[in-house]
């Protein structure tokens, strides 16, 4: 073991050394950026641009509805506008905005130097930018989606939307969702593994708890939507009738899949904002938040409950009343964990000495608007009342109260609270108070009145109305309020620009906050902390006000540069004990290249160039594999000194490396998607009309047994390569990987053989869903071949040793998951004909 490189005595020299390895290159090199501060800012700025687009669309809607029988917009354009308003605000503004905020803040709050997978951040950003651009271009060319942001079938099916509009939605949104899933994986692993030494779970800032729970919700919330979108696109492109009731499909399946995602989505958007409230409010109330543990428990409870109430969007589809009562109870029960948080905040304010500074003003706006939205939410969960106001402007008013109250107001507070951190500047004079009042008054004028418009019977998504309905004044007031609000946002934008450009230099930690992000210089350098702090309390800065200077002098952990590596620490999940040195990648163009190739795939599917799509897919997977060339180590290093007299192994030699967790999380999302697909088949069997199908599928036991045995061999031999006696002996472990690859190839062949006997999948949803399940399993076997061969390649090129087995352990996880999915698929396919025959 060597001594740690001596930290330079001078903080400036330390900064220069660290900056040289961490900073993003200038010029074209910006395209190679992987640093979380850079990517986080890009997410935020791009999201704000999309917010402006969504806002302009909203203004067009309000202009159209301001007067009855308006000739401003016709239904064709109007339908595109409201569909895009919802889609942009949900998928291209709200989610990317908090992803950006989380990427920027989390490592700094947790005392780390970057996110766990910086290249994945960059890849996610490009996917978001490209996917969002597809949607914007479609709007520009007048072929934007026009079926409503929830894209109900059969209206969105080929028969009733023959153009490209619906495909744009399905493909653009799915492309963007790659970034949501990658962000989910990355946020979870970062929060669990990349914290400062000593930061145990119960010392974690609440914002990290909120983001952890949110990311888990994204991980299981998005797969049903992605799966539903894929099925609908396959129905539109290849006529597989998943949602066509004439052929055993069911439009309600889409609604279930959509809202299975769509309701958690609301909490996915709310929780990060609530995390902002829980962070900013105690600082400005000059008191520690009350009920830390209560809040943690209530956000976990909220996450679980939110997956049990999607049906409250479907109270009018004819589901039995008792089932509705269950979902109604679950929907009102969500009020409990929300109320716990509201009263924790109120109690903190009452116990503290709150300052009415600008962020606090926006937090008060949040309380006012969000609580009102929560109360109408309880009303909507009441089944009979829902029968009246569902799909009216009452719901439009409610959802804006919840989303603007529960997201925009906290995010505006966040903007003013963290702006000095982003820019290093403080306001001289702020236009923020004026912006607040314009937004607040404009918002309430628009949407408070709109509740009444809904009760007066105005349905959603009508492009005009006649003057005898009694809705004219209400709509005119809403429109005036809407334009006031727009002026408020314009003033906010101007204010941000002025502060960024002309603000005075901010002092460090201007709010006297306790969380670690305020220990970085402002604006922060690419590496955040010149050395990493040991953490012993929830508010590390509260007891040590000069912690920032101490860290800049290199007095913490890793206060040096070793071999030009980008290093941060990985900890044991619960205790926060140091476990490994995580080496992070340098700036690289690979994420951009991979995203471009992914884009080739999506755009080819959009334009039905399927040969090119296959090429794009293969190239994208190939480019993702290339990422690994610069990861991993070809030498055993042993424990490395990390400063403060301690040592830790590099992550390539640690048993619990971040990438292993990433694989586990990917498999969780994968299992959710598979479960949604299996649910789809069973749902159609039980609920859809025109069942049983004209023809049952008998795959034959021999082929299925062959597939299962082959998958079991792959999982077994993959694991055997890691066993003592194999791992140290390159030829023996390589042989196991060859066996695994051969077994996966056999399984793939078996699954294709079963696929061949499935009768025409366009005839009935049963054959279509069976076909889809088999394809799903076959894709896993195909990727299993790649994983086995990849392990072999890594092994033969020196990346694997007795202590460096990460690549092989990740491959085993995949083989096991493939075995699970293979067994479940074949069980389902064999048992369903038997059950229908009974």
């Amino acid at each position: 073991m060597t001594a740690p490189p001596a930290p330079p005595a001078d903080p400036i020299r330390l900064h220069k050394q660290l900056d040289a390895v961490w900073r993003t290159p200038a010029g074209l090199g910006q395209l190679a950026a992987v640093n979380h501060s850079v990517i986080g800012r890009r997410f935020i700025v791009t999201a704000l641009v999309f917010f402006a687009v969504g806002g302009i669309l909203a203004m067009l809607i309000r202009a159209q509805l301001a007067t009855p029988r308006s000739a401003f917009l016709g239904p064709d354009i109007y339908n595109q506008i409201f569909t895009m308003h919802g889609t942009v605000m949900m998928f291209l503004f709200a989610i990317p905005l908090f992803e950006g905020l989380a990427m920027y803040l989390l490592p700094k709050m947790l005392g780390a130097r970057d996110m766990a997978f910086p290249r994945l951040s960059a890849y996610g950003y490009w996917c978001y930018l490209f996917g969002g651009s597809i949607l914007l271009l479609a709007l520009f060319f007048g072929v934007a989606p026009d079926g409503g942001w929830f894209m109900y079938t059969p209206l969105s099916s080929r028969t009733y939307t023959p153009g490209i509009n619906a495909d744009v939605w399905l493909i653009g949104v799915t492309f963007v969702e790659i970034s949501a899933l990658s962000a989910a994986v990355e946020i979870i692993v970062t929060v669990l593994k990349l914290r400062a030494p000593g930061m145990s779970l119960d010392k974690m800032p609440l914002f990290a708890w909120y983001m952890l729970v949110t990311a888990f919700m994204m991980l299981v919330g998005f797969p049903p939507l992605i799966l539903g979108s894929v099925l609908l696109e396959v129905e539109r492109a290849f006529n597989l009738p998943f949602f066509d009731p004439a052929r055993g499909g069911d439009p309600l399946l889409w609604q279930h899949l959509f809202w299975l995602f769509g309701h958690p989505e609301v909490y996915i958007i709310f929780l990060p904002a609530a995390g902002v409230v829980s962070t900013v409010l105690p600082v400005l109330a000059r008191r520690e938040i009350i009920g830390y543990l209560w809040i943690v428990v209530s956000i976990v409870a909220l996450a679980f409950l939110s997956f049990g109430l999607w049906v409250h969007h479907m109270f009018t589809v004819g589901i039995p009343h008792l089932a509705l009562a269950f979902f109604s109870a679950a929907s009102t029960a969500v009020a409990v964990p929300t109320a716990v948080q509201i009263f924790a905040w109120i109690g903190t304010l009452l116990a503290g000495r709150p300052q009415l500074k600008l962020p606090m003003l926006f937090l008060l706006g949040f309380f006012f608007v969000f609580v009102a939205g929560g109360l109408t939410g309880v009303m909507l969960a009441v089944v009979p009342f829902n029968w009246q106001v569902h799909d009216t402007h009452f719901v439009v008013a409610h959802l804006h109260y919840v989303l603007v109250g529960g997201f925009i107001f906290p995010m505006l507070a966040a903007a003013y609270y963290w702006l000095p951190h982003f820019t290093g500047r403080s306001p001289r004079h702020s236009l923020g108070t004026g912006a607040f009042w314009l937004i607040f008054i404009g918002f309430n004028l628009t949407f408070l009145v709109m509740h009444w418009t809904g009760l007066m019977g105005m349905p959603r998504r009508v492009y005009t109305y006649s003057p005898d309905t009694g809705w004219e004044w209400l709509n005119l007031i809403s429109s005036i309020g809407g334009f006031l609000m727009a002026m408020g946002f314009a003033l906010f934008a101007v204010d941000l620009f002025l502060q960024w450009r002309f603000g005075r230099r901010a002092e460090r930690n201007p709010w006297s906050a306790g969380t670690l992000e305020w220990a970085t210089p402002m604006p922060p350098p690419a590496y955040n902390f010149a050395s990493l702090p040991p953490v012993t309390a929830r508010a590390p800065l509260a007891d040590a006000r000069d912690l920032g200077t101490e860290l800049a002098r290199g007095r913490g952990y890793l206060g040096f540069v070793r071999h030009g590596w980008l290093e941060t620490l990985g900890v044991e999940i619960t205790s926060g004990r140091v476990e490994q040195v995580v080496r992070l990648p340098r700036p690289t163009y690979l994420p951009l290249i991979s995203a471009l190739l992914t884009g080739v795939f999506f755009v080819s599917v959009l334009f039905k160039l399927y040969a090119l799509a296959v090429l794009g897919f293969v190239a994208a997977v190939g480019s993702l594999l290339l990422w690994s060339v610069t990861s991993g180590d070809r030498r055993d290093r042993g424990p490395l000194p990390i400063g403060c007299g301690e040592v830790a192994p590099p992550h390539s030699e640690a048993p619990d490396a971040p990438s292993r967790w990433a694989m586990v999380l990917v498999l969780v999302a994968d299992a959710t998607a598979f479960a949604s697909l299996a649910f789809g088949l069973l749902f159609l069997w039980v609920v859809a009309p025109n069942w049983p199908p004209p023809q049952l599928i008998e795959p034959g036991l021999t082929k299925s047994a062959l597939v299962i045995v082959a998958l079991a061999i792959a999982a077994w031999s993959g694991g055997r390569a890691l066993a003592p006696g194999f791992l140290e002996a390159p030829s023996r472990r390589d042989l196991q990987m060859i066996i695994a690859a051969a077994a996966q190839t056999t399984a793939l062949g078996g699954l294709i053989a079963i696929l061949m006997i499935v009768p025409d999948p366009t005839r009935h949803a049963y054959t279509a869903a069976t076909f889809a399940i088999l394809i799903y399993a076959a894709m896993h076997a195909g990727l299993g071949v790649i994983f086995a061969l990849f392990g072999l390649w890594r092994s033969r090129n020196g990346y694997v040793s007795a202590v460096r087995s990460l690549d092989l352990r990740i491959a085993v996880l995949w083989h096991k998951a493939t075995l699970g999915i293979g067994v479940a698929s074949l069980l389902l396919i064999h048992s369903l004909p038997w059950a229908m025959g009974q």
Partner: protein
Amino acid sequence: MRLPAFRFTGPAVAAVGLTLAGCTGPLSTLDTAGPAAASIATLWWVMLAGAMALFALVVALLLAAFVKPGSGAGTRPLLWLAGGGLVLPAFVLTPLLFYALWSGERLLAHPLSGAIRIEAEARQWQWTFTYPDAAGGPRSTVNVLHVPAGSPVDLRITSADVIHSFWVPRLAGKIDAIPGHTNMLRVVAERPGFYRGVCAEFCGTGHTGMEVLVEAHPPDEYAARLVRLAEPVH
């Protein structure tokens, strides 16, 4: 920076103003003309009163935090967390849920002898109603639904193409018309007259214009009126 004190009188003024503006309107859920709509309107007024009380409580607590800073410094956190977070919602929500379940149950189309059956089929962008039990053979109308005043009518609702939703706000809540499914809605119009309805589920470019009119006839004239209608076209 010190900002002017808040005045949270805005919503109260707005609420009064709105109430004065009236609840009447050809499509108003609060200007009821049938028992289902009436029962839901009562539910709304009860919930509105409760919601305003809770809202006032939250606003008052927030005001207190700024008007008398530190006034809650002596309060045990558990009071807020358990009292406000658990006890308060439990006391409000449990009775609300039971009340809602009970009133929802009464509105359902449980089998009822004597209820008049009418088939409703939606398509882009019109409603076709079929009266299978009309004297002298089935009759059919487009976009106008004839019902007898004062009697329960059970609509069997489906769709021939995309999803639509049948909604006549002054009479009852809405229910979706979904291809491949048949949903039931019980409607009672208390008095003879015309009641307007709209399609509530977005169904394409003609969604806005997809209106429906319910014509409630005096009970003794209903049978004769049906006979004069056209026979169904197949």
